[in-house]
């Protein structure tokens, strides 16, 4: 395929555009089984992915699905549809382009199955659903190409694992399927290529010209950043000035809650009434679409957003990207910066706005890393088996399957190439019987092996329940928020169930940039009115929490060792000096521990700089030991740099807490009972199909129907400790949430050099941790003591202490 049809070259010429070298190269490789294109944002990556399809369909027009496009975001699929439909129409090509996501109507979806478009744009979840249909072979008949956009984002998550398993299925249905991956700049292209290709086939890697270096700086503000917090309210005037000075600005935040607060404050200060919108994943779909449409029409001067706008959506004339809060990860920072200036060969312009003084340090370190091109990467884990279990159920939905063939198929997915047959069989047994040591309910197996050896669902009606629970995205349970009206008011978005439970009528909170008043709960919907009579609470949406990479942490520790910090703004340099003055600064070869009373509780802060996950594990291990010693720990919170533990009693000698052998010995028994493991279990058990989030009749009554997944976890621990779900939970925890390797690395690094500082109050460096979200409770003796105290207090207040006694 070398000559490009004139209707396509003509279209480029008419616009005075040239076909980029990497777009041509993609065309030359159109018949490769797999090609990975690494190109900067704005490099015409999408066109490079679709060009071979357009050429093929221009030369040989035909009906039926030709190319499947998968992106991690619904919004991205919709955006590509918009940006592809125009050129295709202008070229006069008769190609139907449709998207299919969770937002597509049921009628449209049904029609797509009967009469598939030539180009279908979808997400991993919608694709999983498609391959679960009995008529999947007919839907995908003739499929020639699959384009996976933003593959770097998918390759780091279970959504990617699910997608690559679905791809193994598609390849069986369509043996000639060509695979294309489009990726932003990454540290390790070969690792992504391994995931993309059909194992063990090779994969071509194409590197496009990275373009000019970005123009990226830290925003200097008149106002000093606060000691702690993530609001960056101090930067509002400076940010507004920047918005005024540019055409369109994207203002990125790390969490949804921060985006809400910032947007609120921005509006309060927006004296010129600049058109500014907000966009994040917890907002109602129609709200989001309104903002997207206004953005496309060029009506907005700025959008306050989160990761929901992180990926390659083309917002047209964005000429400035502002990152509020530390970027945590240099790779993602570079990708976000690429959002500005979607013209090839124009440098992107970006500003970092640290929200507090610690983040000033982190931002300076990140800028250094960007200048040195030092992208951070993490080692890849083997494909998780909870996703495999879901894939087996999906296969069963599509029809009876042969276990040997399915095993051969899934091991062509790079992440599952090393999966042993025994591991596969264990997963199959789990899907079929539950895989319990106690052989129960043989009659009610989920999957049955037929006399001809094929596996099928015992009850064909189970397909509905399985399909309702597809996907690997683990949103915490959320409740919809609506304005209270007679017949169901306007939907505003969603808040976490836990946050909703903490509200009492009259409380106000922020959502979608407005202050609303909580009125009550009606059929699992939060009803609110628009009224701002109090200072709002902050909805604790579960925004994605990113971990600071090892590379960035090391840079920060190196900076701490300097005598002074000319590269830092004076306020931050002074803050570090103050910390050095009242306590000391953490060092790479030592471990700093501070303890101090605060807010009626004893606090211990451990500066391990081991990354969020390892610091979290450290929190779990340390609180376990503190519980044993009788210090009554109540909970802890972990950041990338430190773990802050609070409890009822004071820590005097930290040394015994840090005996590595004791930590390791305790690991397994400790793993059994803690909150992070239960959280991990809940996620994995939901993906594997043990817990159903959605059932045909659920959510109506909300009563007695469900019980906590913690009960299942405890029951398995007690009666079936070697069960597959517990193995998966442990595997997950070791690679993901536990990350014991980094604790070992830290212990080796400090070699017993512990500096314990006993202080009378919270230190400059510890203060930010008090405001961190994501506190992990410790269930122990302290809980009983608190209950006793509170019960007594309540009874006395009510004057009924003498009504009851103890027997």
């Amino acid at each position, binding site marked *: 395929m070398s000559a490009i049809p004139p209707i396509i070259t003509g279209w480029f010429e008419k616009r005075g555009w040239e076909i980029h070298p990497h777009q041509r190269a993609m065309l030359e490789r159109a018949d490769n089984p797999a090609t990975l294109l690494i190109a900067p944002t704005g490099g015409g990556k999408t066109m490079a992915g679709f060009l071979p399809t357009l050429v093929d369909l221009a030369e040989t027009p035909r009906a039926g699905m030709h190319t499947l496009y998968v992106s991690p975001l619904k919004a991205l699929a919709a955006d590509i549809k918009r940006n592809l439909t125009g050129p295709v129409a202008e070229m006069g090509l008769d190609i139907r382009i449709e998207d299919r996501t969770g937002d597509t109507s049921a009628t449209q979806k049904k029609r797509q199955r009967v009469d598939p478009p030539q180009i279908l744009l979808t997400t991993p979840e919608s694709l999983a659903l498609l391959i679960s249909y009995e008529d999947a072979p007919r839907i995908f008949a003739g499929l020639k190409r699959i384009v996976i956009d933003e593959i770097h984002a998918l390759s780091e998550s279970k959504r990617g694992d699910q997608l690559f398993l679905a791809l193994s299925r598609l390849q069986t249905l369509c043996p000639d399927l060509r695979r294309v991956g489009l990726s932003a700049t990454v540290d390790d292209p070969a690792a992504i290529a391994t995931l993309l290709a059909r194992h063990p086939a090779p994969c071509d890697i194409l590197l496009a010209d990275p373009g000019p270096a970005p123009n990226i700086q830290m925003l200097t503000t008149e106002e000093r950043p606060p000691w702690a917090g993530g609001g960056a309210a101090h930067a509002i005037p400076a940010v507004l000035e920047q918005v005024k000075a540019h055409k369109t600005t994207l203002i990125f935040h790390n969490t949804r809650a921060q985006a809400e607060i910032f947007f609120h404050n921005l509006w309060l200060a927006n004296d010129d009434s600049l058109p500014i919108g907000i966009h994040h994943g917890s907002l109602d779909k129609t709200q989001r679409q309104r903002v997207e449409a206004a953005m496309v029409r060029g009506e907005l001067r700025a959008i306050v957003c989160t990761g929901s706008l992180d990926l390659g959506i083309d917002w047209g004339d964005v000429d400035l990207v502002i990152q509020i809060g530390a970027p945590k990860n240099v790779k993602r920072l570079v990708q976000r910066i690429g959002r500005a200036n979607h013209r090839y060969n124009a440098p992107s312009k970006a500003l970092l706005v640290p929200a507090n003084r610690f983040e000033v340090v982190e931002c300076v370190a990140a800028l250094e890393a960007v200048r040195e091109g030092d992208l951070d990467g993490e080692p890849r884990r083997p494909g998780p088996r909870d996703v495999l279990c879901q894939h087996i159920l999906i296969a069963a939905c599509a029809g009876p399957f042969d276990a040997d063939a399915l095993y051969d198929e899934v091991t062509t997915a790079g992440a599952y190439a090393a999966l042993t047959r025994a591991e596969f069989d264990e997963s199959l047994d789990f899907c079929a*019987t*539950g895989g*319990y040591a*106690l052989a*129960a*309910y043989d*009659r*009610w*197996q*989920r999957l049955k092996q037929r006399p001809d050896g094929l596996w099928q669902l015992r*009850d064909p*009606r*189970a397909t509905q*329940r399985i399909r309702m629970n597809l996907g690997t995205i683990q949103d915490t349970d959320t409740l919809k928020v609506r304005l209270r009206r007679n017949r169901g008011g306007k939907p505003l978005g969603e808040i976490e169930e836990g946050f909703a*439970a*903490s509200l009492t009528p009259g409380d106000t909170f922020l959502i979608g940039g407005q202050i609303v008043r909580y009125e009550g709960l009606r059929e699992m919907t939060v009803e609110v009115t628009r009224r701002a009579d109090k200072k709002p609470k902050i909805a604790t949406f579960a925004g994605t929490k990113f971990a600071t990479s090892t590379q960035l942490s090391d840079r920060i520790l190196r900076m701490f060792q300097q005598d002074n910090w000319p590269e830092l703004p004076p306020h931050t340099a002074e803050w570090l000096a103050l910390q050095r003055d009242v306590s000391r600064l953490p060092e790479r070869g030592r471990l700093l521990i501070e303890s101090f009373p605060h807010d*009626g*509780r004893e606090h211990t802060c451990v500066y391990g700089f081991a990354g969020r996950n390892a610091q979290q594990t450290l929190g779990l291990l340390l609180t376990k030991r503190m519980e044993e010693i009788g210090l009554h720990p*109540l*909970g802890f919170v972990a950041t990338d740099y430190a773990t802050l533990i609070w409890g009822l009693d004071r820590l005097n000698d930290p040394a015994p807490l840090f005996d590595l052998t004791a930590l390791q010995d305790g690991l397994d028994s400790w793993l059994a009972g803690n909150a992070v493991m239960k959280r991990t279990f809940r996620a994995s058990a939901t993906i594997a*199909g*043990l*817990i*159903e989030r959605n*059932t045909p009749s659920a959510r109506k009554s909300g*009563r*007695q*129907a*469900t*019980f*906590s997944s913690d*009960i*299942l976890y405890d*029951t*398995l621990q*007690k*009666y*079936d400790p070697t*069960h597959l779900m517990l193995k998966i939970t442990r595997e997950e925890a070791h690679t993901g949430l536990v990350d014991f390797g980094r604790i070992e690395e830290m212990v080796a690094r400090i070699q017993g050099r512990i500096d314990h500082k006993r202080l009378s109050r919270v230190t400059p460096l510890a203060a930010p941790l008090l405001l961190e979200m994501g506190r992990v*409770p410790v269930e122990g003796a*302290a*809980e*009983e003591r*608190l*209950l*006793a*105290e*509170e*019960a007594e207090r*309540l*009874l006395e207040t*009510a004057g*009924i202490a003498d*009504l*009851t*006694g*103890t*027997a």
Partner: protein
Amino acid sequence: MNNCSLSLAGADLVALGSGALWWPAERLLCVSDLHLGKSERIARRGGTILPPYETRDTLLRLTDDLDRMNPATVICLGDSFDDLDAARALAPEDQTTLTRMQAGRRWIWIEGNHDSGPVDLGGTHLADLTLGPLTFRHIAQTGARGEISGHYHPKASLTTRARRITRAAFLSDRDRIIMPAYGTYTGGLRSHDATLTALMRPDALAILTGPRAYAVPMPR
């Protein structure tokens, strides 16, 4: 000392941290909503295949209470089985455990909405039972006095100075006691649900279960 004394219609009762109710004068132990066989029923009806250990676990905990209190009478206050098929499908060793528990004492199954009608597992089956001043039935009736019931699986949350703690709970006022669910696989209905606040008097108590039983004004 881990329990909580109550008085209802002149009868002195003890709410145990385990979720069982003890009537010392009658040496009577009452438990509610065991939901034995729940995982079997879910699997049978095409749901997920949950760990099949909840029956064993529930019976083990009940055995502990029986060993500790040695009651002359045991009342299971309805929804003892997740449904009648679940009762019939009870594993032989669980049946043996039940038989052993019933030996030498009076055992009463009160009918619930999940398990109405007799099952072949020993004991007496009753729609409800009145003993002295107290009436035992599955679902509370408005206007009743001296009534002990289950059905709603009440739970209550306390906001302590450090965190919010939620436990299965007894609800108690001068007319009635609503028992927490005893079964391992049981969720709960929060005490401030309208159904429960309508049933209970304004001065009702909630008794939170757990290692110790704690009485507090019923959160509503």
